């Protein structure tokens, strides 16, 4: 079993939307061939969440989703704990579009997973075609990286 799983979500060709994918890919490149905190973490970079990701989650001790958070106002990145509803209702899953909570709920209910799940939300402001990031998001990147590293070191949603 992998201790930690990072799932970066987003489209790198749609501006700030790709920040989740960017941060996870960046971390993967940083730790490739190195030993140390986080180097043994598993990674997934996806455009969208799909049900079979629950299998990957079920094989990890804990999982961090990293995604853009659309906000009109200046804000800071933060990590929140994910606690799926226990009533078996749809939550964020009902069609082709899935949210992190739905993937976690699926892992819990189908595979009996009881790990820790969290979501790193990074404020995102602009989504044009292309890889350029908005100034607002660029300001948030150092803090987002700190959150990600803190979580990999074992920090939870309150500990980073």
């Amino acid at each position, binding site marked *: 079993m992998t201790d930690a799983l990072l799932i970066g979500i987003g489209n790198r060709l749609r501006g700030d939307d790709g920040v989740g994918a960017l941060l996870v890919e960046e971390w993967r490149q940083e730790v490739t061939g190195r030993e140390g905190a986080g180097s043994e973490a598993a990674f997934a970079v996806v455009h969208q969440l799909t049900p079979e990701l629950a299998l990957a989650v079920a094989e990890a001790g804990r999982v961090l989703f990293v995604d853009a958070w659309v906000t009109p106002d200046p804000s800071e990145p933060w990590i929140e704990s994910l606690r799926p509803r226990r009533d078996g*209702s749809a939550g964020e899953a009902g*069609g082709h579009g899935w949210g992190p909570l739905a993937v976690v709920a699926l892992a819990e209910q*189908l595979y009996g997973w009881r790990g820790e799940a969290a979501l790193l939300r990074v404020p995102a402001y602009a989504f044009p075609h292309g890889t350029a990031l908005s100034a607002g998001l660029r300001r948030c990147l150092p803090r987002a990286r700190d959150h990600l590293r803190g979580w990999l070191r074992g920090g939870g949603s309150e500990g980073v």
Partner: protein
Amino acid sequence: MSRTVLIDPVTRIEGHAKITLHLDEEGRLRDTRFHVVEYRGFETFCEGRPFTEMAGITARICGICPVSHLLCAAKTGDKLLGVRVPPAARKLRRLLNLAQLTQSHALSFFHLSSPDFLLGWESDPARRNIFGLMTADPDLARAGIRLRQFGQRILESLGGRKIHSAWAVPGGVRAPLSEDARAWILEGLPEARATAKRALGLFKDLLDGPLKREQAEFGRFPSLFMGLVTPEGMWEHIDGLIRFRGPDGAIVADGLSEDDYASFLGEAVEPWSYLKFPYYKPFGYPEGIYRVGPLARLNVCEAIGTPWADQELAEFRQRAGRMALSSFAYHHARLVEIAACLEAIEGLMADETLRAGRVRARASLNANEAVGVSEAPRGTLFHHYRVDDQGLITRVNLIIATGQNNLAMNRTVHQIARAWLPDPVAADAEIPEAILNRIEAGIRCFDPCLSCSTHAAGRMPLEVTLLSASGEVLAERRRASL
């Protein structure tokens, strides 16, 4: 005063649409419309791009079935280069498409549609999804996830990523299949086959029992069916010729080339939808209504050509008739196609030539216009490009499977509304949830991907409105967006 019912948004499909049910003065159903209200315009922004980028660009139309655009764009590019694709590359493309069909059909059946069948039309919509399914039958839910993962892993191992891979290119593919990938595909096939077999058994029992009426009535109407077949008339998904069969089984047109699509396909436009209405030109509009996709592929072919799939096809035809006219049979057809795909994948794994020789032919531009065709999970897909002498795109036309089913989706909604709505509808009648669900489910038979066909950004919620003859909204039901 006539009235209209509006269903908006349609859940568990991709894109955004609403349904209006129009009543006449006596409260009887006069007309139904499946409106697609989003627009993206992919064809326009491809102009000016090099044709070699088209596989990468058009694959981004959708995150669900990018492979279909990738393959069709690559095939169109082959013709612009004027090359013969090496045999190994042709087979690798076939493998990619088979994996795509498998994963997409698994998603449609296990995650999107089976909750309706297994939990019942009357069950709480909030629970009629994969979470409800996993409570009712966790083993089936797990097996469905694994089957989709199997298809996805093949895509990933060939293309380097599950979606938006740029592995297929004009002239062939970028890389061969690795030995490791071949080994785990062979290892995973027995489980995938067992899952498909279980789903087929379960669904056939439902068709013979609680879903008998749906199988008989749900979106049943005469139409043409179009799909690719081999020169011998067998089931085909990427390299064949186009065949039209009529509702009585007669072959209406055969051996058609995609190059001539404009001579047999027309595209009508209606002011109330962004989705075009393709039709079979010789029959005119809207009489030239035709269906594409898994149901059409099974209807147009003589047989599939592998033992298990042919056995399932025989059973399919036993239940639905030689020409399955009910749109509900799309679900069963998807499962039969999964069997066909898994057998075909197994066959390719045993084929030594898959791993032999070149995988890409190289050339410079040799033509200024080309049309490519392939079978996407939802039906026949056409890419038509014109390029200048530098290979820059000057015109693109994409004819998408969901668009080709547009007339049929409208007819299906009409058929279901006629069968299940009270006749006449009382002025103060509530629209029962079960009827709304069936109308929605009628659309879901086609597993429409409206992001592709209208090239729309966003998700697809459903809205249903009941309108009077004078256009007054009498009732309205909206579902939470996805």
